[in-house]
């Protein structure tokens, strides 16, 4: 049967299991929005295309499905770019669909024409320019396959307006042919054997669990591996939840704001087992002094990550779950008792320095709020964050017991990610509690999406940590710029009134005893709620590895008695 390109697009999206689309309309994409009316999909109108991109990202991270975001040509498409970069850095599977001017106008600077495939080429896993209706079905199939397989990532399809309107025979392609695209699965036996040799000899091994554990769904295999070999597990920011925070084998988060005992363990280790992580500079500190005593086994699906920052003695290129499944039966059991005891000594020393150990001084600190949230949500909420100090504190003090519970912009560090991503996360899991833990700066970047929450009735609880500063930058100014607070003091609206203006109930807490009450209020009130926590202005995140310092050269929190 003949169908328009826009209808063919919808037919293909439905076959990919898409029922939720985030987007914004405009001239060059009108046929697509029109076609949505004829198909069982829910389109969420965000207030800015960046919001649509982050919402699709939150949806994808929370559901494990491919997110979809739609925008018009020109400014609509360029507004997506920050969201595309964010997804690309964190390997989030999203298919972006943008309208483009008619094929015969391309290159003529037509109204709202922009070279979108050119702009997004370096920040997508792959992209397409579609000029004819009969290309659409094939391209959409390929795009979803590429987005979700191998190392996932964003794929953009730019569709010329004529291709959306033209009618052509709809034939759903049964197969796809991508001669150059074969994501690796198994690692060769030779490599596995070398890995087993290193594991056998190790006395102080550490596993580094990254986003790849979650992406590959290798949580069980990771736990079996760690338990069998009694190897402690350090996690990257995006790897949090790979094993439960309460596990005796958990070392918590590594890196710039990682646990001191975790970083010490990495620096002292004699064998690093890197599972689906890419040795980002926020994780390694200065490379020349990184884990100097350790041999490295690197299990990674993307060959270009191997040897990129850290040389791997044994690279195992493949899907993490598959490689671990192959590797586990080849391993003996080990206890590493002395090593675990050493780590316990470091752990005790860290606890003494924690904010949680401070005597009550009637002041409100973000870690207190986050710990209270953790208690009130039984540690099981979907936590979405902005970027900055509150993000790091959320990572440190919301002890993640399960995977896919923390949605945060890691690689890109995109302020403004939080609110729209929380909206997307709610669409993925309407049964779960979704909490946005945001900074006053980050929140203001995409606060327009409050309207979207209300229009959609999205049950997202918002907790703004208001320190009246762009806190993380202020912290760097305190440490490295003699407290010259250039461009970091920030004001905001009366957040409670802002919420009220949207018809969202709000409550403010300024002292520790008001915290619990506020969270209670959020729990009792159905639908979206905004809480503002007026926290200490000049508190800093510890430990901190200054940029360019070795991983063990951490600035530690002064002990308070």
């Amino acid at each position, binding site marked *: 049967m003949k169908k328009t390109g826009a209808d063919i697009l919808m037919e293909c999206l439905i076959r990919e299991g898409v029922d939720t689309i985030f987007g914004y309309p405009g001239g060059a994409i009108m046929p697509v929005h029109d076609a949505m009316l004829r198909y069982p999909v829910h389109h969420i109108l965000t207030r800015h295309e960046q919001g649509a991109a982050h919402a699709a990202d939150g949806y994808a991270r929370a559901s494990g499905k491919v997110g979809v975001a739609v925008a018009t040509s020109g400014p609509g498409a360029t507004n997506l770019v920050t969201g595309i970069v964010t997804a690309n850095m964190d390997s989030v599977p999203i298919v972006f669909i943008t309208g483009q001017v008619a094929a015969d106008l391309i290159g003529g600077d037509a109204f709202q024409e922009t070279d979108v*495939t*050119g702009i997004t*080429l*370096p920040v997508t*896993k*792959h992209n397409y*320019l579609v000029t004819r209706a009969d290309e659409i079905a094939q391209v959409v199939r390929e795009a979803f396959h*590429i987005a979700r397989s191998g190392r996932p990532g964003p794929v953009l399809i730019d569709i010329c307006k004529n291709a959306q309107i033209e009618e052509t025979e709809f034939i759903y392609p049964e197969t796809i042919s*991508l*001669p*150059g*695209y*074969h994501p*690796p699965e198994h*690692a*060769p036996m030779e*490599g596995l054997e070398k890995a087993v040799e290193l594991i056998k000899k190790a006395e102080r091994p550490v596993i580094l669990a990254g986003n790849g554990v979650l992406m590959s769904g290798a949580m069980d295999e990771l736990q079996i591996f760690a338990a069998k070999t009694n190897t402690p597990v350090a996690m990257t920011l995006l790897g949090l939840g790979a094993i439960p925070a309460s596990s005796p084998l958990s070392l918590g988060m590594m890196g710039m704001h990682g646990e001191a005992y975790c970083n010490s363990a990495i620096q002292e280790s004699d064998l690093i087992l890197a599972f689906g992580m890419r040795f980002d500079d926020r994780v390694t500190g200065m490379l020349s002094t990184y884990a100097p005593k350790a041999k490295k086994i690197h299990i990674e699906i*993307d*060959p*270009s990550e*191997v*040897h*990129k920052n850290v040389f791997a003695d044994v*690279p*195992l*290129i*493949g899907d993490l779950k598959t490689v671990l499944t192959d590797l586990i039966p080849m391993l003996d059991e080990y206890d590493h008792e002395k090593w675990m005891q050493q780590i316990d000594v470091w752990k005790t020393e860290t606890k003494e320095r924690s904010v949680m150990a401070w005597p009550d001084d009637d002041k409100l600190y973000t870690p207190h709020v986050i710990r209270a949230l953790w208690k009130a949500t039984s540690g099981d909420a979907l936590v979405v964050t902005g970027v900055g100090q509150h993000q790091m504190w959320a990572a440190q003090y919301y002890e993640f017991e399960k995977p896919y519970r923390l949605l945060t912009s890691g690689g890109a560090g995109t302020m403004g990610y939080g609110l729209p991503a929380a909206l997307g996360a709610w669409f993925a899991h309407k049964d779960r509690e979704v909490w946005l833990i945001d900074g006053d700066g980050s929140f203001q970047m995409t606060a327009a999406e409050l309207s979207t929450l209300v229009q959609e009735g999205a049950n997202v609880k918002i907790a703004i940590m208001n320190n009246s500063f762009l806190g993380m930058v202020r912290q760097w100014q305190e440490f490295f710029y003699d407290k010259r607070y250039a461009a970091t003091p920030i004001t905001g609206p009366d957040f409670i009134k802002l919420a009220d203006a949207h018809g969202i109930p709000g409550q403010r807490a300024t002292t520790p005893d008001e915290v619990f009450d506020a969270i209670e209020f959020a729990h009792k009130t159905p639908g979206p709620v905004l809480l503002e926590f007026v926290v200490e202005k000049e508190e800093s995140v510890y430990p901190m590895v200054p940029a360019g310092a070795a991983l063990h050269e951490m600035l530690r929190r002064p002990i308070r008695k």
Partner: protein
Amino acid sequence: MHNTLIALVEDKPGVLNRVASLFRRRNFNIESLNVGRTDKANISRMTIVVNSEGVDARKVEANLYKLVNVIDVQDVTNQPAVIRDLALIKVKAKPDQRAEVSSLAAIFRGNIIDVAPDSVIVELTGTEDKIESLVELLRPLGILEMVRTGNVAMMRGDMSGKRYTPGTNGNGHVE
């Protein structure tokens, strides 16, 4: 140090742009890049020479595989391969100097392919070294223009089912 890579890519619009963009954003220094058709309708072939000082050629190879349209990459550096460059060199030559140019070209098995009143065009195929030697000899006469294709490369012998260097894609797995 140079590394020579052969890449088979899908013959689709924008593929050259993808490769060039990759090299730029990963800060790989390209010495030369040659693209052309192959015997197969949908496949183009690139010969890429990278300056591998500071860049591990394996990185280049692994990154090329990230491009969906790249089908196969092989590093033929220090392998039994034929590597050739083609140059067209336009040299200032009055009629009485033509014989000199012609004999120099002949030493290198180059050909004179065009003669004008004041100049000739020499065509030479060979390794980079050979071309550079001739260029140096012709330079005193006055070189008006020169163009080179950059290296093209091919492994010797029957390569079907064999790889001389393990591909970085999937641990050197052979297709």
